[in-house]
């Protein structure tokens, strides 16, 4: 689970404003990529997948209380562009139940969107395995672990960079100096990072199991759902 659950106003403004700007650019790129697609099929599917992500997250289907996101699955089913859009809408739907940060919507969209986009390309790379339900499940599971690991790295990078006091180093030149100062005002970061990585690894395995099981089921029951994303 790589959603940044840091309250509003904690990370430096330049970071989340930057996140919003980059997210807006990615949304624009995703919208541009959808211009010649089968809108009648994919727009509603993106909407319903955003709902599925929000619902499954809240249903406590994992006995130990972990909340799967299914962002990787949405990328597999929708393709990278619609998967990214669905992820953005999923974040908004979370906010509508008071679970989410307004200022970090951009950064969260980027991180979760990376899972969705990365998940699609990773699943495609393992497409040779998807000739059977089991193979599809394994491919989806591998894609999930890798995508979530990368997203966790992005998440930690955001938090790490967010601890840099840009104002204090503004008059000093050099990237090295910047990196030296990073994290030094934040002695809690190593502890935080360790916690995130340990818990995160457990989460990757759980989410991979869930995503793999769903992909295997869909491959058995509605294989076109997994194939059509390639055409999206």
């Amino acid at each position, binding site marked *: 689970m790589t959603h940044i659950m840091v309250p509003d106003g904690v990370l430096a403004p330049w970071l989340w404003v930057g996140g919003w700007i980059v997210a807006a650019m990615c949304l624009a790129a995703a919208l541009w990529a959808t211009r010649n697609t089968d809108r009648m099929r994919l727009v509603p599917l993106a909407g319903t997948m955003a709902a599925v992500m929000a619902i499954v997250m809240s249903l406590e289907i994992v006995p130990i209380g972990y909340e799967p996101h299914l962002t990787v699955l949405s990328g597999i089913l929708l393709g990278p562009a619609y998967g990214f859009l669905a992820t953005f809408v999923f974040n908004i739907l979370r906010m509508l139940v008071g679970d989410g940060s307004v200022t970090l919507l951009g950064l969260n969209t980027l991180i979760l969107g990376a899972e969705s986009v990365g998940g699609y390309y990773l699943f495609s790379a393992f497409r040779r395995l998807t000739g059977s*339900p089991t193979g599809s499940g394994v491919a989806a599971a591998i894609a999930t672990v890798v995508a979530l690991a990368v997203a966790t790295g992005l998440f930690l990078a955001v938090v790490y960079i967010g601890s840099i006091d840009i104002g204090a180093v503004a008059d000093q030149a050099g990237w090295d100096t910047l990196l030296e100062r990073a994290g030094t005002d934040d002695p809690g970061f190593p502890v935080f990072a360790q916690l995130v990585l340990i818990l995160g690894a457990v989460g990757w395995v759980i989410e991979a199991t869930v995503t793999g099981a769903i992909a295997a*089921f869909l491959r*058995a*029951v509605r294989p076109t759902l997994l194939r059509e994303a390639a055409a999206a």
Partner: protein
Amino acid sequence: MANHVVSVEDLRVQYPDGRTVTILGGPFVAAEGERVALLGPNGSGKSTLLRAILGLARATAGKVEVLGYDPSRDLDAIRLRLGAVLQDVEAQLLAPTVGQDLAFGLAGRGLSQSEVDARVERIARAFDLAALLDKVPHYLSGGERRKVALAGALITEPELLILDEPFAGLDPRSRHELTELIRAAHERRRLTVVLTTHEVQEVPDLVDTVYLLSETGQLGGHGSPEEIFARPDLLAACNVEPPPLARLEAALQARGVRLPLLHDPEEMADALLAWHEANMSVRPAQPEGAVPR
């Protein structure tokens, strides 16, 4: 309360969206081997009562006892003894093929794979599903999906079977088929059955006891189908229309023609003719010019 498989009294349930459903009166009971139908209008609380019996809805007031346990607290103690087919049948078809779905409920019960396969084969034959074992259940017809769901509930040989609107959306032939399957399952194992339905014409053939639930959640009366369907006042209060034959019987009774409540139109016609032969000894005069029979 002894020997009652199910007992519910003065139930109140609050749903996550804040709605409260109250079922007053009772107790609503089902004895071992008894088949009970709960009739009432939409929104009266029928499904809520069934969900409370299955431990899916926690009562904020009142008492629910199933096989001696409070199902909302101790569902694990009785789960293996329950079988259910809920309103949303599609949500219960959990596996990619019919065969796997039938076997779904047998996992974790200490059965070997060969025993599981044998049970699946047996119930598939009984339910005429053998040709569908490799099919995806979601793409079957409505009647077939319900049969799969019912077979999946019965394969575990439960003591109590809960059916929420089992006939909804089915054509008459599928309804009849399902009725026969439920009856056969009950006869085979003295199964206790609790069901809700709007298809009142199936009720006289299928159940031993009928409970009525009014719009306001009040348990309005209970008895055998004959007793209940002969009470138009109770039925009207609970917005339940009796089966056509029961209406005919009531109309005839109002005109002085006393007949037993029968479930088969052929038998009803024979009984009516017999009554006519016995009671109408004077033939009416033939009109002038009529050809004598």
